């Protein structure tokens, strides 16, 4: 897939709770095909302390409107600066990057935690286009830390798990009754301990499972080799060989 560098305009910015926001970015040109699970590298303006671009998951795509939505959690100076930009500002993106999720299985489960929920909305929509309704299990420490909920409802059956019990079942996503049901494909993105627990469950039960990793990056295109993860076949770039990895290649990672 051809990668592009292009200026987008912030058409809309929405704040979600105390730590999340969405940016609706409009391209002046037609969007190329974007796969669910791919990401963009965003140039962060206005802050001299931010040197590198920031890799951010693609939350949603609207080809008719030529827009991409990013769902971002404020975690550091880069994301904080992005959260402070006004609508109408131009943002430079390198995109679409990475391999994306394979949309497979007849009875899939999507498991998202916190900011890791971001790539799963566009993923759920892709399943919907194939006439498949996945089970969607979203988790967070509190209800507020699950940034997007109702947007998923048209595309699958929803389940929630929160550590404080403020939404859905009290506990971790892997303790939710829906997690133990029978699935033929699991796609997950979220905190590393959560993804490792999901991956171990999938490996033990022989279920195909894809995990989407988030390492700090520089180039985003597989040139600098800074963002590597350990796999069963050695170091691989999260930006180019991932961010989505099949857990059958990640057995050591899952157990670590």
């Amino acid at each position, binding site marked *: 897939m051809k990668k592009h*560098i292009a200026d987008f305009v912030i058409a809309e910015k929405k704040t979600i709770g105390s730590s999340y926001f969405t940016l609706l970015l409009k391209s002046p040109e037609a969007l190329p095909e974007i796969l669910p699970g791919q990401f963009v590298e965003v140039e962060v303006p206005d802050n001299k302390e931010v*040197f590198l671009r920031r890799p951010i998951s693609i939350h949603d795509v609207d080809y008719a409107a030529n827009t991409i939505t990013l769902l971002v959690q404020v975690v550091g100076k880069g994301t904080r600066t992005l959260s402070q930009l006004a609508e109408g500002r131009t943002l430079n993106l390198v995109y679409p990057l990475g391999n994306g999720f394979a949309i497979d299985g007849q009875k899939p489960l999507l498991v998202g935690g916190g900011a890791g929920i971001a790539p799963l909305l566009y993923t759920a929509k892709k399943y919907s286009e194939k006439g498949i309704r996945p089970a969607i299990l979203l988790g967070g420490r509190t209800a507020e830390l699950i940034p997007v909920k109702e947007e998923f409802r048209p595309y699958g059956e929803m389940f929630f798990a929160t550590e404080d019990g403020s939404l859905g079942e009290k506990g971790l996503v892997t303790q939710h009754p829906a997690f133990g049901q029978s699935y033929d494909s699991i796609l997950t993105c979220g905190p590393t301990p959560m993804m490792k627990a999901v991956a171990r469950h999938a490996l033990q039960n022989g279920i195909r499972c894809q995990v989407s990793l988030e390492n700090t990056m520089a180039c985003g295109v597989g040139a600098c*080799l800074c963002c590597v993860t350990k796999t069963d076949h050695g170091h691989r770039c999260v930006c180019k060989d991932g961010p989505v990895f099949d857990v059958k290649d990640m057995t050591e990672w899952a157990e670590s």
Partner: protein
Amino acid sequence: MLDVKIHNLSLKNPVLTASGTFGYGEEFADFIDLSRLGGIIVKGTTGSHREGNAYPRMAETPSGMLNAVGLQNAGVDVFCQKTYPRICDIDTNIIVNVSGSSIEEYCETAAKIDALDKIPAIELNISCPNVKKGGMGFGTDPKMAAQVVGEVRKVYHKTLIVKLTPNVTSIADIAKAVEEAGADSVSLINTMLGMAVDVERRRPVLSTITGGLSGPAVKPVAVRMVWQVAKAVKIPVIGLGGIASANDALEFLMAGATAVQIGTANFLDPTVTVKVVDGLQDYLNRHNIKDIHDIIGMI
């Protein structure tokens, strides 16, 4: 006219890409026409496969970044058999950066690259700060630097560029030593040894504790060292360190560099290299200079 020569190597313009920042060129083919570059210096290549250092390998710093990749690469045999056939017909100079832990490893790798028709030059990396054995160790002592260059010179017959580390007291002394040992050119600077601490976690950011600093933060040091080395040697000097614009490149050229390399800036703007090429031509036009040589080493 932007064309320059590095010994026997003809460059259509003085803009090269720095090893380790541009992959094998292919990673950037969607963004730019690679044939517009003076050359591509591909990822550091060693005698055998290397996994590199553990993650995290990168830390963002003011106007720059630290890296500790540690020469991850598939080894010279995989390069010759798999990578070379894919990239050898790109219409520019493909130069291989050669690294190692021993003189034998440098020589074996250089000899294998020497046999590849469409690789006109190597860049001998005696300056990597991120490997435990060898690497920068060869580049910090004039005698050891001369020894490794002298041995490689015996087995490598095309243009031999030697990449120098800034982590020394007198880089001109190292440059003179490798010139005497048979280097056709020197490139400088490799990264500066640095360190960053995560104060919340109370530990170093990098898995290796220290790493190599690159980006605009190092540029003034690099310009100074290029100027010192250009005064000290007769062979052509290739300048790098924080170049992100044509003006940055011009600083190096005026300070004595015959060509330049663009590194970390590729991560911020994957089209920066061709912007620098265009910017150099604009500068010549604006100042009514016919030949880039009229400004090389003018200071």
